[in-house]
């Protein structure tokens, strides 16, 4: 099929692997910014989710956050942030900050909600007996609740990561770097090879991210819990 050959040619053309705007640069931009966004999102959402789950206060807020997080169109989030960051910093406020901020905002709900749900659903008897044994609240959280809730927490982080990678792809529309640039430029230049090459790269990165976190999830899950993991994975929304 012609499309396949054109794409293969584009992907194997050495000119596309060196120099500015080439595949390695875009890949690094994409992964780098995504990693940064994920770390910040985890730093914000994880403690909040753990706290809400542990104290069981504010769970209604968490539920609402889940609903809103699933409903909000990611492009709109970038769009809303853009005028504000552009006003603050005309240079990076267009290319960098809107996408970065949007990625963080969109990743917070799945991470927070899963952390909350995971911790809150730890067997109440288990928690009670830990307290009865004399464990302080912090220890209960750290030594009992988190390990038991770990698969669900990780599923939330995985969902957030996938969301972030996808939003970074969208950011290319607004001049942020990343693999999405190949899609945007390819459409403008009507270059089928570039479009499809970009599609392959973006899909590969998205699937690899999903797979990597799934592996992490399985690896870090205590064997006794493994069977119940898959049923409780958070449902992300396509971006």
């Amino acid at each position, binding site marked *: 099929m012609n499309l396949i050959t054109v794409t293969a040619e584009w992907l194997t053309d050495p000119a596309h692997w060196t120099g500015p705007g080439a595949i390695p640069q875009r890949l690094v931009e994409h992964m780098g910014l995504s990693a940064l966004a994920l770390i910040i999102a985890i730093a914000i959402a994880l403690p909040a989710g753990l706290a809400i789950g542990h104290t069981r206060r504010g769970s209604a807020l968490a539920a609402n956050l889940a609903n809103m997080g699933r409903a909000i169109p990611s492009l709109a989030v970038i769009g809303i942030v853009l005028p504000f960051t552009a006003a603050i910093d005309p240079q990076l406020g267009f290319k960098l900050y809107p996408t970065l901020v949007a990625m963080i905002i969109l990743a917070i709900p799945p991470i927070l909600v899963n952390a909350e749900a995971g911790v809150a659903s730890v067997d109440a008897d288990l928690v009670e007996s830990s307290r009865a044994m004399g464990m302080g609240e912090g220890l209960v959280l750290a030594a009992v609740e988190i390990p038991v809730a770990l698969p669900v927490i990780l599923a939330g982080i995985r969902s957030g990561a996938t969301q972030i990678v996808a939003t970074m792809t969208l950011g290319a529309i607004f001049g942020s770097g990343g693999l999405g640039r190949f899609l945007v430029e390819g459409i403008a230049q009507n270059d089928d090879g570039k479009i499809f090459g970009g599609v392959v790269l973006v*899909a590969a990165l998205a699937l690899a991210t999903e797979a990597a976190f799934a592996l992490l999830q399985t690896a870090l899950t205590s064997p006794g819990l493994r069977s119940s993991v898959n049923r409780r994975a958070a449902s992300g929304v396509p971006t």
Partner: protein
Amino acid sequence: MINWGWIVEHLDELAGRTAQHVGLAAIAVAVGFAISLGLAILAARQRLTRGPLVTVAGIVYTIPSLALFAALVPVTGLSILTAEVPLVLYTLLIFLRNILAGIDSVAPEVLEAADAMGYQRATRLVRVELPLAVPLIVAGVRLATVSTLGLVTISGILGDRFGGLGFFIFEGYRHSFATEILLGAVPSILLAIGVDRLLVITGARLTPWAGARPSA
């Protein structure tokens, strides 16, 4: 910062683009549901197809939408097919998962009773299992609709004709015109949340026998 006068002048465009937005989403959800129902019935009857179907749908779901829209450009150009096909594909996993979960959720005793009453497998599926799966199916419709409403904005990459409210985001960006960007971003968020709430209420009314709302 916001040019309210400009917004007032463009209210009719806002209405038009909103209608377009809803229309594009409605077509995708309807077509996606029809296809998914067929696929789910297939998966329920031929156990072996279930795994592959769900896996493929899951893979498609993970691929960022911009990539899927772009992938179709060399194939179907900048036509409505290019806009609708990805939207439909993204609903498949949601619907498949929910319809199948709904079918799975029917208690074994009910199935046994149906068999005892003489239902064939096919009839049992259509007249017993699916109707009882309605709560989860309704939840699936809600998820699929809301996610599709979000993805419609991205179809704006295909040109001025598409994008629904997303058109304003793209156009506003092209002109560095914050008001226009917000004219696209805010209503699209409100639309998505509003429809989500609406479907929650509708779903609860349609399934009065389902006590706690099942979330998928």
